């Protein structure tokens, strides 16, 4: 009751703000003049009133005031544009900014772009896709998530992994949105590549704390990724041929300045290249068969502008990984066969409708689908000459499917308020894992089928929110909001009111201090093995036995612009998490028992400090980030109830990323990372223990003593990646050759640790004697890459 009162009061406040507003509005869209692509977070500034605003995710802006306004529209990498306008009535002004090339960025550094110290939102990083594409990439495959791992407060799980561990949280605590739709499994090839094809992306924003009220459902971060909309002016294409995969992106107008499309596809081809060799290999064994692995993904989007007020977007992502091994004997009368298949993938689709309801009120409605599915099948069969078929197969299927509807409103009553409110509903369907055992014998007329596992679970999730980005005086700015969510499962309802506040105080023109507080609730859980991101990781709902995860996070910090080129931010944070989920000790994936019996819930705590020095402009750009952090967990059922370090507790994490535009057609880049080793559990001693269950003599059982969980540190992780890009404008297209190397100085970074005992005969005694050794396995030595890309 009390919660509802607070919420209603908040809405009343918003209405009051509206009634107070007595001004006229200029609104419209800001886009790229060459492509028609909408510009997100472009800056609008009135030199007369010294007020401003920014464009939203769809390029929409709204500025209100009175009298004459001298409005400057600016965006990094674009020439700014200034217009003078008399605000005596509501007006629509759409702005197209001309892009500037990279070398000219140095000259445009004086453009008044939104400075870090002016934003009330903290713990947020936006990395331009163009910058991500220049960072040296593993096997030449540009990877958005791996680029984000180079930011302070964001860690990778292990060598080559694309999972994100943000401020001591786990990968399931990241809300990854592709065009507003959650993506449940964001990796290909067991986590070595992310599912996001950089060629199809427009912008990437990561929020680590101080979450605005419009986001909800995860504890640790929001990663908002938006696809390009497609060129409205002319037909364009980009593509690349790399060591792992090739990709092609086509975009262009269907109706110029009205309807556009973009299609981007990527596929690995090692399976195709190896096919003739594999076929020959099977034939030499008297078999026919095939084996291989591939992944592909396709991004597609169509957008149509009905009018200045209405626009429709339809976007989809389809991605799949598949491993297969199929063999069949050919040189015998009785033929055995084996069929193995392991496939997983996501499908997301979003239909979004933008409508400008009034000059100050923008609406976006989204209908979406997100589906993640895993299929694993193994089958053995025997074919007899008399057509008899014997076959036994086991299939495993799990996944999650969401249907969602969402409506968001942006209301800009005055330059001092930017109000957002909206609502969301999601229908989840969880498949916790179903085994199907099938046995066929045509001669015995046997067709046996047994299903073991758990029934699908449906759940409804809803949320409403309201937030206001308020300017109070010339120095103080606050983003305050409330997020109210509910989760209904098996007749039980979990409600949660989550207050959020983020503020900044300008000390002087270049410096501000910031503080934020956010509470979050997460109603779905990822049941995963620590240490390796497997597609078998299960998304599961909160139930009457498994409670929702909750957290609160405080952060304080300071931000300062150092001249026009550099930005420095320093933040400290404390995050407390409750009901985080883990497998009970000894529980595993492929078990027939109820998953709720296999999990346990506990608490987590993470705190630390982050420093980010960033240079976005100029020939030399990049950043340097450092994180000092602690992350611990406590479960009653693990480690005898004692607190232990999270596996990814990383005391020091340092990254330096630099891109240098050496010549007009040559750019050099490098990235160096250092991180404290992961925390693992290792045995220090052995002993014999007794179990009493049997009858008669006691059983002595070999046992190992581990000390506390995760109390051993792997070696520290560091590596240097370098790359060089040669670009040349040809007659009909522009091409780029990229060369580089991952782990240039061949550091043997830890991947996992194992023990080994080698036995050798002692010549003197004739006895075998063992030698114990503890070994650290590394995954990737120096790996050079070459990549050819083109655009036309």
């Amino acid at each position, binding site marked *: 009751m009390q919660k509802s009162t607070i919420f209603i009061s908040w809405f009343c406040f918003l209405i009051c703000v509206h009634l107070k507003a007595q001004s006229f509005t200029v609104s419209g869209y800001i886009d790229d003049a060459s492509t028609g692509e909408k510009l997100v977070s472009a800056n609008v500034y009135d030199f007369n009133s010294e007020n401003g605003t920014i464009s939203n995710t769809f390029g929409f802006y709204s500025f209100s005031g009175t009298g004459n306004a001298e409005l400057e529209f600016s965006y990094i990498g674009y020439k700014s544009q200034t217009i003078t306008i008399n605000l005596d009535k509501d007006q629509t002004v759409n702005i197209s900014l001309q892009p500037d090339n990279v070398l000219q960025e140095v000259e445009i550094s004086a453009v008044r772009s939104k400075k870090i110290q002016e934003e009330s939102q903290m713990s947020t990083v936006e990395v331009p896709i163009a910058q991500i594409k220049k960072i040296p990439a593993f096997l030449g495959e540009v990877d958005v998530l791996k680029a984000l791992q180079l930011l302070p407060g964001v860690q990778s799980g292990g060598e080559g992994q694309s999972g994100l561990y943000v401020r001591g949280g786990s990968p399931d605590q990241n809300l990854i949105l592709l065009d507003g739709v959650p993506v449940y499994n964001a990796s290909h090839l067991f986590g070595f590549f992310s599912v996001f094809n950089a060629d199809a992306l427009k912008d990437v924003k990561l929020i680590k704390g101080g979450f605005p009220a419009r986001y909800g459902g995860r504890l640790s971060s929001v990663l908002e990724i938006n696809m390009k909309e497609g060129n409205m002016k002319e037909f364009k294409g980009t593509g690349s041929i790399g060591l792992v995969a090739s990709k092609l992106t086509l975009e262009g107008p269907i109706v110029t300045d009205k309807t556009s499309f973009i299609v981007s596809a990527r596929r690995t081809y090692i399976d195709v290249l190896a096919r003739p060799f594999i076929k020959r290999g099977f034939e030499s064994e008297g078999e026919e068969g095939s084996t291989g692995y591939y992944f592909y993904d396709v991004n597609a989007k169509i957008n149509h502008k009905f009018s200045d007020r209405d626009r429709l977007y339809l976007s989809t992502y389809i991605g799949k990984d598949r491993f297969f091994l199929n063999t069949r004997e050919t040189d015998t009368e009785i033929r055995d066969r084996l069929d193995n298949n392991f496939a997983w993938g996501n499908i997301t689709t979003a239909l979004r409708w933008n409508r400008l309801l009034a000059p100050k009120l923008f609406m976006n409605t989204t209908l979406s689908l997100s589906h993640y599915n895993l299929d694993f099948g193994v089958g053995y069969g025997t074919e007899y000459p008399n057509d008899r078929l014997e076959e036994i197969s086991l299939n495993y299927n799990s996944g999650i499917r969401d249907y969602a509807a969402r409506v968001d409103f942006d209301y800009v009553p005055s330059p001092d308020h930017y109000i957002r409110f909206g609502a969301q509903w999601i229908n989840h369907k969880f498949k916790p894992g179903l085994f199907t055992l099938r046995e066929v014998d045509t001669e015995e007329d046997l067709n046996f089928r047994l299903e073991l596992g758990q029934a699908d679970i449906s759940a409804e999730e809803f949320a409403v929110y309201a937030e206001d980005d308020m300017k109070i005086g010339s120095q103080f700015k606050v983003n305050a909001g409330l997020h109210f969510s509910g989760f209904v499962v098996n007749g039980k309802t979990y409600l949660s009111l989550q207050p959020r506040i983020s503020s900044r105080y300008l000390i002087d023109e270049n410096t501000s201090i910031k503080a934020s507080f956010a509470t979050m609730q997460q109603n779905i859980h990822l049941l995963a093995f620590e240490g390796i991101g497997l597609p078998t990781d299960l998304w599961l709902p909160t139930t009457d036995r498994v409670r929702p995860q909750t957290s609160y996070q405080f952060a304080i910090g300071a931000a300062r612009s150092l001249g026009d080129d550099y930005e420095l931010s320093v933040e400290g944070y404390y995050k407390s998490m409750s009901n985080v989920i883990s497998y009970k000790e000894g529980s595993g994936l492929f078990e027939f028992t109820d998953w709720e019996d296999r999990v346990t819930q506990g608490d987590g705590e993470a705190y630390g400090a982050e420093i980010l020095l960033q240079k976005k402009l100029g020939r030399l750009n990049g950043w340097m980030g450092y994180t000092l952090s602690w992350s611990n967990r406590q479960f009653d059922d693990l480690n005898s109830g004692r607190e232990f370090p999270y596996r990814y507790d990383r005391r020091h994490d340092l990254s330096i990323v630099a891109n240098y535009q050496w010549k007009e057609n040559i750019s050099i880049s490098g990235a160096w990372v250092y991180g404290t080793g992961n925390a693992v559990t290792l045995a*220090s*001693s052995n002993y014999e*223990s007794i179990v009493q*269950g049997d009858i008669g003599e*006691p059983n002595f059982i070999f046992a190992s*003593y*581990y000390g506390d969980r995760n109390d051993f540190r792997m070696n520290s992780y560091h590596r240097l990646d370098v790359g060089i890009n040669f670009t040349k404008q040809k007659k009909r297209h522009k091409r780029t050759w990229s060369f580089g190397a991952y782990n240039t100085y061949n550091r043997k970074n830890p991947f996992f640790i194992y023990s080994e005992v080698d036995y050798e005969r002692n010549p003197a005694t004739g006895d075998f004697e063992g030698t114990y050794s503890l070994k650290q396995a590394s995954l990737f030595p120096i790996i*050079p890459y070459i990549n050819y890309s083109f655009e036309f």
Partner: protein
Amino acid sequence: MMNLLYKATILVLLVLICSSCGEDFFTTTLEIDPPEHTDQLVTNAFLNIDDGKIEVAVSQTYSVVDVDQEFELVNDAEVILRNDQGLDQLVPASGQDFGFNYFADDIVSQGNTYELEVKYGSFNSRATASIPNLVTLYDFEFIEDGGIDSEGEDRSRVEFSFDDPEDEENYYELTIYMSNEGDPTLPSYATYTDTNDPSGSRGYNYQSLLISDASFDGERKRFKALMYPTTKEEVEGRLFVRWKVVSKEYFQYSKTLNIASELEDNPFATPVQIFTNFEGGIGIFSVYREKNYSVF
């Protein structure tokens, strides 16, 4: 100038790459130092309060590096049993080289709490345990066609009831065993035991079941244990249940020990630390109640 910079960059890259090309360039494993080992005293002590019998095994840990280490019991330790009623009794060495090397069968059941102290050289470890309440079984039934177990195998079933004491955490260990064919007065072997009841979990090597009353505290419980499929004729008069009321510490110890042994060769599993209730050492001191029943 630019040309020079270009060449210098290429040179630096080549030097970086070539300098990495040592003998073990393509080796992906590296030997590292194992965690430091400290000797610890290991005590496994079980006090059957109904029989007045205590069995103790004392040994030591050894480094993971000592792979040829022979398992040896410590036979010259001082093992002292105390309780909250003033008992202070030395548990004498039994002289055994294997099994329990300290033994006494004259322990008086009194008080609520027992403490076991083990002294050996500079080691001094101690643990305390409380006497659990006796809970008895009744209404036994044997069912030949007892359904399937968690792995889909056909099983026979033994059912029985008991009244779980209210407002206290209770833990039980159940073993189903057959008597010796030649001499029915002697136990022969523990039979395979499993259950589909979520309050029960498998013990070591399927030889027992561990049961927690968390889901039926204070209630009458009808428990169904599964065993190898067999006929009534085969087991009539020879089928027994050994029923122990154990401490929470023993329950945790036994569960973690079973899990640890099951996971020994699983590379994906997080290692499990075996529960200990000893301070200054490791192991388990368990005080339990035991009663044996004939099923039919």
